[in-house]
């Protein structure tokens, strides 16, 4: 496994005892670990681009756990496992609604902690895979000419070449050529696959009844 793929667990806790203990445990269950004493340290740090999860203390001195969760929401940040010294139900509900993987009261059960870490990393792997896939798709999409990008919505909309040609005021044969180019450039083996790719890219199909 390359270093890039080796998962890492980030820990943000203001208590050095907790950081050391978590660090030791995470290492013992076979993950890399990096610890931070505050939210701002975590935000400022340069973090490796690997599958990861974040173990986040709810009570932190500067930016607290819930605030950091909000801060990270739009940033492709790793999944969050919340830990807390007092089982505070309203906070846990908020955290879980905002997409936390797990909410663990201290002291934690080792199985629960390990499961949560593994689950969070699996989620992150999947998310990273999706992000990667989307990246590839975007690259391929950018290879299409302007005309081809214009044709694509009609193709995935299920229109025949003749119908598309009528919509765009061109010949059926031209559309057939475009369609071939689109399939080749997008690396799609079937129309179904092209439809799925367009969906991922957020391209709306056209030419159906009412559109």
């Amino acid at each position, binding site marked *: 496994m390359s270093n890039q793929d080796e998962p890492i667990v980030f820990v943000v806790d203001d208590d050095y005892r907790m950081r050391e203990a978590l660090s030791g445990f995470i290492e013992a269950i076979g993950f890399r670990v990096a610890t931070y004493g505050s939210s701002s340290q975590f935000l400022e740090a340069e973090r490796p681009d690997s599958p990861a999860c974040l173990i986040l203390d709810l009570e932190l001195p500067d930016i607290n756990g819930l605030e950091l969760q909000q801060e990270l929401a739009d940033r492709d940040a790793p999944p969050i496992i919340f830990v807390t*010294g007092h089982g505070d139900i309203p906070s846990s509900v908020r955290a879980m609604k905002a997409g936390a993987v797990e909410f663990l009261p201290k002291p934690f059960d080792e199985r629960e902690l390990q499961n949560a870490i593994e689950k969070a990393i699996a989620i992150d792997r999947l998310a990273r895979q999706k992000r990667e896939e989307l990246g590839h798709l975007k690259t391929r999409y950018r290879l299409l000419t302007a005309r081809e990008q214009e044709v694509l919505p009609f193709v995935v909309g299920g229109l025949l070449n003749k119908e598309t040609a009528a919509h765009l005021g061109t010949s059926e044969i031209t559309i057939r050529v475009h369609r071939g180019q689109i399939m080749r450039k997008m690396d799609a083996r079937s129309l179904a696959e092209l439809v799925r790719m367009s969906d991922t890219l957020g391209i709306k199909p056209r030419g159906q009844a009412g559109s």
Partner: protein
Amino acid sequence: MNTSDEQLRAIIDTIPALVWSARPDGSAEFFNSRWLEYAGLSYDEARDWGWTKVVHPDDLDKLVDDYRSMLTLDSPGEVEARLRRFDGEFRWFLIRANPLRDESGVVSKWYGTNIDIEDRKRAQETARTSELSFRRIVETIPALVWCASPDGELTYVNQRILDYTGASLGDLAKAGWVSFLHPDDVQETVAMWADAVRSGHPHDVQYRLRKRDGTYRWFHVLGQAMVDLRGQVTQWYGLLIDIDDRKNIQEALHRTETRLTRATQVATVGELSASIAHEINQPLGAVVTNAYACLRWLSSEPANLAKAREAAERIVRDGKDTVEVVGRIRALFKRTQVQHETLDLNALVVEVVRLVGAESSRRRATIETELEQYLQAVRGDRVQIQQLILNLLMNGLDAMDAVTGHPRKIVIRTQQKDSTMALVEIEDSGIGLADCEKVFEPFFTTKEHGMGMGLTICRSIAEGHNGKLWATANRVFGATFHFTLPLQANELTGPHQ
């Protein structure tokens, strides 16, 4: 009459006494003119035994008896009797008689003088009555009265003291009274009495005195020195006042107050439970997590002993931390006798702020400290003063719960107010106070679940330490609570960041 006779007569009539002479059988043959003028009798009326009619009937028998025995024994003598004046008033006289003997030693004549002792007699009488009535007062007033000599030895106690103790004056006199004190009170009482005797200052002490049935009652004892013109103590006078019932009520009150304080403590524990749980769970969580790590390292193939050992060492360290945290929290809430000791006020503030820390961040509030760097130590009860700081901080947090639109912030500062007092201020940015005095009244509360005793107890703690607690409104937001505590003279506590 020749000249010397006239001179003698003039002298006899002028000297300030009633003069008379009598024959050996006692019958009178001469009275000076003062005598006759006093009695308002003529010589003929008074002569022989006529004078006896001016003697008070109650005194006549004794006078005659005494006079007869003088005559019989031929020896000089004196007797006191009341003699009627011309206007009918009886006055006391000291009547003295002396025999005149001829060459052969036979009594030929008696000479006598009557001296008016009415005023002296009356003064004596008054003194005797006042002495009697004084004694009657001393014996009847519902208090225990004592006297002591200038050197502090007990010389007199009234009957009530004898009745109370069941002892005799002999048992109590000098220093005997000490053995009737409660053993716990002996040392202080004796020392204070010695002080009073040495300085002459009023004696004021409370002690338990043993009753005849062996039980003890509390007395308030007051002693005052009587001083002569030269400033020398001539006598100590003192009172013992039975204050046992009052003392019992005071103690009952004190117990109630202690229980109330305790109840508030328990209420505070409830409010702080999240904070306390956090304080304990933090190191405990580390312990448990380290233990998992340790087991994992031991059970890996091959076992990583170095890593397991590191984890085990962290377990020991954090385990000790947990014990220390629990100890600190217990110390804050345990019920102990009030114990005054030298305290570092800054350290107490830091400790309480730390405990409240998690609670304040949960409530989205911050607590800042501004501590006087070189603050003299104060004297007080550790638990009570921590309780006082804790209550005021919790009160500040409560006052800020409803606040939006500006930061929820408490600043707690310590200051040396002057050469005798330290000042602590707790400034919040809460909803403020409508009435800075009313908040200290019992059962005054603006909180839904408050008992309204918190600030009342805070004030009683401050005043119990000879300090003060008061509140002021801030210029913009919130209120500031100030309290003072007496400094322990000449002791500095170390600098604080």
